[in-house]
């Protein structure tokens, strides 16, 4: 919590306290209008035990909810309106609002605030009419204008919200999902939609600054210097290889004619396009393609980072606030447990069950904690031993899957080599992948085989990603972690698996590209290693998408169908599937990771990704609504949101790092792409930077020197310390206030007890006196007679 915020809160709370006091005073005055004597008599009549309910804080709670910045009058009126038992009487007692004249703007504001009041519509309407009819000051001149503006702005905002609400993508599917699965799962679909929009934004960058200029300006370029066409294209002789029967294979492999399209790095020009508009200004427009090619990835990387951090920060803040009140676990469960949006009877039943389980789980956890303390030493050692063994086992699985990927990759490349080795001649301009396809036995079988071989590593990765998490999920049941940690740990392991497979693949690609570049023999083959890398990612994303599609429609759907329509118990257990959120989150984060990693080498990837995400929504929706039954685990919306974002952030860092490395360290291909003549891509950036005006250069250099960096670092540290100190102080303050509140509560209890005792005593005394006076009367009467 930042300092400013808390001080505001404090101010508000103090104001609220004042409000209470005020309201309390009023309350007593209203209830006992005759001053102290009457108060006393009232207290006499009051039931001592019920005194607590008369307390102002219990009675006048409405003063705390209805907008705080209101005048006393209104506050009293809303307090009255709250008392449901005798609403009608109170209504007639409503204070006359017109007594304090307000201006138009204020009364409008007040009308806008009526909606927050917990009274029925008829009363609201009456209030509104009252406010409207009350005599009020007309605003003059500038104020009038301002108020009008405010009103128009308000109206505009509501209209805009309405229109935007209508335009919102996938509104009705979300509602259906929400009704059946609750808010936690909807959060996942919102996340999917968020990723779709992110990719649309990235694609916009790429289309606007890379693809359009390259297509529009290149023709121009080739017209004027057609001799130099060699430099603009990576593989200019590609057309010779394309035959009609391998178009489809090329399409899914990204080879052949695909290589010559804008899909891949190699095609982008290293030219600085000059475009003159003699008609307009006679000026020359310059478009520096290589610069654009490096700036666009930087731009979208920053955009993604900002978007993730911004969205994540919101969730993080919520988490922090929640963590501060870790003690509210049970309250949340009880008061926020039910999703009011659930409207499906079956889901409601499952929701009941889920909540039941959650409550049981929480209570068990507490017992578990107690158990832990009372656990014997042998038991603890045994448990830890079991966990260590299982962790080692998990590690072994990870390593094994890495090795499997490595072997399949090696196998596929080496068998592909055999094809290429058989080639009698190699045209020097062909790229590696191109040669694979160009090897024509006039035999499609061979081509398909080579395609299969090429896809083998990716299929292997995807299959591993499908089955190993199941093993993890099975293993974790033996580790007896806390229920809350189970999801986290499984997720972590699965992320590790996915990353491991990525790392192996990347290192393989790296070894291949750099190895081939180094050894003189194959140097000719990989003309354009960036394109080759881009192809790998292209294939990976295609495979992943295909597997998602096949899994959903051809595996899970029949499973669900079987489970639903057969009576055998065995089939039913096979058939029923839960919508296991972490797994599905990983699926889409994985695709995003591929996109980030590959977008530099294959600029079309974000666009492909956008399309995939669009279809993926429907695939996942089908999977969710048709194949799955609601999960018996309660997914909390707020928690899952921040979880998604943190996983995505990990994915982002992991995917940007290798790309950054390749930009900074690896030498680009000599014969293709925008950076032919540079040692590294980054070197190009430096040379461009050197062309900047000296002032800019000076400034940037200054930033790098210690004279700037050290003070900046110190200031940053200082701020960090400051905020840390404020946060600690606030936390301390919260604890103090809490204690104070508790003490106040005790004080109140104490006073109430004393008061009721006093009243009882007083009542007794009165009775005695009455009896005495009665006796007196009696005696006097007797005397008189």
């Amino acid at each position, binding site marked *: 919590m930042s300092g400013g915020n808390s001080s505001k809160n404090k101010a508000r709370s103090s104001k609220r306290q004042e409000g209470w006091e005020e309201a309390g005073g009023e309350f007593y005055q209203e209830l006992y209008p005759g001053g102290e004597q009457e108060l006393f008599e009232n207290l006499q009549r009051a039931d001592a035990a019920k005194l607590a309910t008369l307390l102002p804080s*219990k009675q006048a709670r409405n003063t705390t909810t209805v907008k705080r910045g209101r005048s006393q009058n209104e506050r009293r009126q809303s307090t009255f309106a709250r008392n449901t038992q005798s609403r009608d009487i109170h209504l007639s007692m409503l204070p006359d609002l017109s007594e304090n004249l307000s201006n138009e703007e204020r009364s409008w504001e007040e009308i806008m605030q009526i909606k927050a009041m917990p009274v029925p519509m008829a009363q609201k309407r009456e209030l509104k009419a009252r406010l409207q009819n009350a005599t009020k000051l007309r605003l003059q001149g500038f104020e009038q204008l301002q108020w009008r503006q405010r009103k128009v702005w308000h109206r505009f905002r509501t209209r805009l919200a309405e229109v935007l609400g209508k335009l919102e993508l996938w509104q009705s599917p979300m509602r259906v999902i929400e009704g059946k699965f609750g808010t936690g799962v909807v959060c996942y679909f919102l996340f999917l939609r968020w990723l779709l929009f992110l990719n649309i934004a990235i694609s916009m960058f790429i289309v606007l600054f890379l693809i359009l200029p390259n297509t529009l300006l290149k023709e121009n370029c080739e017209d004027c210097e057609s001799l130099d066409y060699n430099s603009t294209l990576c593989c200019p002789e590609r057309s010779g290889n394309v035959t009609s029967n391998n178009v489809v294979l090329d399409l899914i492999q990204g080879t052949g004619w695909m290589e010559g399209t804008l899909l891949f790095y190699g095609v982008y020009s290293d030219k600085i396009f000059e475009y003159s508009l003699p008609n307009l200004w006679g000026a020359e427009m310059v478009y520096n393609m290589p610069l654009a090619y490096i700036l666009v990835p930087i731009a979208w990387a920053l955009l993604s980072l900002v978007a993730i951090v911004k969205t994540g920060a919101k969730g993080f803040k919520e988490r922090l606030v929640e963590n501060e009140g870790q003690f509210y676990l049970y309250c*949340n469960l009880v008061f926020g447990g039910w999703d*009011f*949006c*659930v409207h499906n009877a079956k889901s409601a039943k499952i929701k009941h069950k889920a909540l*039941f389980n959650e409550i049981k789980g929480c209570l068990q956890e507490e017992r578990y904690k107690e158990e832990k303390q009372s656990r014997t030493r042998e038991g603890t050692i045994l448990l830890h031993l079991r966990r260590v063994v299982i962790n080692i086992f998990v590690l072994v699985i990870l390593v094994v899957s890495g090795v499997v990927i490595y072997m399949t990759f090696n196998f596929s490349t080496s068998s592909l080599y055999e094809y290429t080795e058989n080639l009698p001649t190699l045209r020097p301009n062909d790229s590696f992948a191109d040669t694979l396809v160009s090897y024509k036995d006039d035999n499609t079988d061979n081509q398909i085989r080579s395609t299969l071989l090429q896809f083998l590593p990716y299929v292997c990765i995807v299959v591993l990603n499908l089955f190993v998490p199941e093993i993890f999920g099975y293993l974790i049941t033996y580790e007896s972690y806390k229920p809350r940690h189970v999801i986290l740990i499984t997720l972590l392991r699965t992320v590790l698996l996915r990353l491991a497979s990525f790392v192996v693949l990347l290192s393989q690609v790296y070894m291949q590209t750099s190895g081939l570049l180094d050894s003189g023999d194959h140097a000719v083959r990989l003309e354009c290693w960036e394109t080759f890398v881009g192809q790998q990612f292209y294939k990976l994303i295609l495979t992943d998408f295909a597997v998602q599609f096949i899994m959903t429609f051809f595996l899970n759907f029949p499973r669900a169908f079987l489970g639903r329509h057969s009576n055998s118990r065995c089939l039913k257990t096979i058939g029923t599937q839960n919508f296991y959120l972490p797994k599905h989150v990983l699926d889409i984060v994985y695709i995003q990771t591929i996109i980030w990693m590959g977008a530099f080498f294959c600029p079309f990837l974000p666009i492909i990704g956008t399309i995939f995400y669009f279809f993926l929504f429907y695939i996942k929706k089908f999977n969710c609504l048709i194949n799955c039954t609601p999960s018996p685990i309660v997914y909390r919306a707020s928690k899952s949101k921040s979880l998604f974002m943190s996983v995505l952030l990990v994915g982002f860092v992991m995917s940007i790092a290798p790309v950054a490395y390749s930009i900074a360290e690896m030498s680009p291909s000599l014969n293709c792409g925008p950076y032919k003549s540079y040692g590294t891509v980054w070197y190009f950036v430096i040379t461009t930077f050197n062309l900047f005006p000296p002032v800019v250069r000076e400034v940037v250099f200054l930033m790098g020197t210690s004279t700037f960096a050290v003070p900046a670092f110190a200031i940053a540290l200082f701020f960090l310390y400051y905020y840390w100190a404020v946060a600690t102080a606030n936390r301390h303050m919260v604890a103090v206030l809490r204690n104070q509140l508790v003490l106040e509560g005790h004080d109140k209890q104490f006073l109430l007890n004393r008061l009721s005792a006093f009243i009882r005593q007083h009542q007794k005394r009165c009775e005695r006196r009455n009896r005495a006076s009665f006796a007196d009367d009696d005696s006097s009467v007797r005397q008189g007679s």
Partner: protein
Amino acid sequence: MGQGKSQFSEEELQDYEDLTYFTKKEVLYAHQKFKALAPEKVGHNKNAKLPMAKILQYPELRVNPFRDRICKVFSSSNDGDCTFEDFLDMMSVFSDTAPKAVKAEHAFRIFDFDGDDMIGVSDLREVINRLCGPEHKLTDSEIQQLVQNVLEEADLDDDGALSFAEFEHIIDKSSDFCHSFRIRL
């Protein structure tokens, strides 16, 4: 939703727009939904009072464990029967745009079964029982434990019940409440 054949005058709609968290179109849409519960009755009188059983036909309410409480809280006659205006009030509070404080206020009243302006032990027990549904029963000691935990967390003044201030305090810190206390129109 044709504006032409709507049963409301422009002023009424304006009133509703000002007094709820809905726009005019949403008000009309809400009325359609309301009408769908009892087409004939509402067709005659747009503000007809529908008995609670009819209101509970509304899909979200039908499965809600607190359905009767919701109706009672929003009913202007306090017996659970709702007119369209009551229904509109209800939907307005449950809408996305309603602020947390308003939702908290109504949630408090919904959870306050005995109407003593405090959520006491008996209220909490009732809430827990309803949450778990008719088929799953927690044992008495479990409920006892849970109630005790809740009170430990939230009952700051140790009087064995949650006052509204305490309840609001919980809701302020719960980020899930706003997500879950919501019915889309």
